[in-house]
Every structure is written in C-alpha cells, then in structure tokens.
C-alpha cells in the first residue's frame, strides 16, 4: 500500500515537472519566434532593396553564360528579363539566387548562426509518445 502511494506521488510530481518544463519551452519558443520575426523583417527589407537596385542596374543584360542548357523551370529565372532565344544567357536574378543560397548558408554555418538540426518545419509531424501516460 505504502509503495503504491509513493509511486502515485512520484508520478504526479513528474507530471508537474513535465508541465512546468513544457510551459517554459512554449514561452521560450514564442519569444524566439518574435525575435526572429523582427530580425527577419529587417533582413527581408534590405534584401528587397538590394535586389531592386541590382535589377535596375542589370535589366535586360546577360551577366554570365551557363555551361549547360537549363530546364524550363530554371530558364524562367535564368532568362528573366532577357531578350533573344539563347537559353544559355544568364540573368542577374539566377546568379543572385545562387549567390544568396550558397554564400548565406555557408556563412551562417561558419559563423555559428545556422538553425539547429531538427528545428525544420517537418520535424514536428511525428509526435513523440507522451511521457506522462507511460
């Protein structure tokens, strides 16, 4: 009897601890989302201005030559705003896209600002078994 009561008490206190940790985690996630939103908005604004400036500077000009024939989907970006039928002409937009993905990802990783693994949007699709009920 005494051991059963002790077990129930331990389980209750564990459940309370889990609840506390979960609510603290939710609060921290909310703060993080708000902070990320603010900084993300500033970064997005700067990038839009820079892209607009580059677009106006290089509009209608082929800035590079592609060493391959791009597929239709890629050509929509690589031949954006260019006249002529040569599909190997590369517009500023495609080069900008390649630069931003490759340099930004690697710079974030190098400087330690990259998001942790498992924080991707798809990570929460499979919920872990509830420790309270086990």
């Amino acid at each position: 009897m005494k051991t059963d009561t002790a077990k129930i008490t331990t389980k209750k206190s564990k459940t309370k601890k889990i609840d506390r940790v979960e609510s603290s985690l939710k609060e921290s996630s909310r703060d993080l989302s708000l902070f990320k939103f603010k900084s993300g908005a500033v970064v997005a604004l700067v990038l839009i201005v820079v892209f607009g400036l580059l677009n106006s500077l290089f509009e209608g000009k082929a800035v590079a030559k592609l060493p391959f024939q791009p597929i239709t989907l890629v050509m929509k970006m690589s031949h954006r705003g260019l006249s002529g039928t040569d599909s190997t002409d590369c517009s500023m937009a495609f080069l900008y896209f390649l630069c931003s993905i490759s340099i930004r990802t690697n710079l974030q990783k190098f400087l330690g600002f990259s998001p942790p693994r498992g924080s991707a949007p798809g990570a929460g699709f499979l919920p872990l078994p509830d420790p309270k009920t086990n």
Partner: protein
Amino acid sequence: MKEGKSAGKLNNSNNQQQHQHQNGHFSPFKFAKLLDPEASWDKDQLGDALHWIRQVVALVCGLLWGTIPLVGGIWIGLFLLISSGIIYGYYAMILKIDEEDFGGHSTLLQEGLFASITLFLLSWILVYSLAHF
C-alpha cells in the same frame, strides 16, 4: 592532499595546453580526428564535417569544370555522383560509422547537399563565363 593538489595542477596545465591549441590555428588534433575510425562522433559534429567536405568538393569541381571547360547538363549529374560517392566513402569506409546511429544513409547524404549544388553551379558558371567569354 598533496597528490590531489599535484593532480589538479597537472589538469590545469593540460587544459591550458589544449586551450592554446584550440585558440591557435587548426590543431593536428582536429585533423587527426577527421581520419580516425576510432574517434567518437556526435550527430552535429559529423553533420558539420560532411557539410564542409561537400562544399569543398563542390568548389573544386566547379573551378575545375569551368576551367577545362566541361559543358552540358550531364556534368551536374556527375558532380552529384562524385560528391555523394566521396561522402559515402568517407563515413562508411574511413570513419566506419553505423549510419543507423545518425539517422540513416539519407540523412547523412543530404547533409549540405543543396548548398553544395548551388556553390558548384555558382563556381562553374562564374569560371566558365570569366575564362571563356
């Protein structure tokens, strides 16, 4: 008591030496771990190592193929095969790790894949355009 103090002093000097190593250039210790099958890896460390290996391979391939030059979409497929082959050979044959402990082959092979493709394309396009046009 005296033994404890001397052991503490030894530990301090060892820690200081390690700090000096870490604060300076990349120490031989880190490079040795990259090729040591007995070294223990955690998921983040291995993921980072695979990511940077892919980026180096992408940069080298892009520079080489832009210089030669190699032209055609098939070389993109070949780059993917080469870089995936190098990554697989590294973790399966050099490090000899059990991929199940790190999320399986797909997780390890995907590490840094998209960034490496864009870096490869960027370096290939830039070198090809600058060297030949």
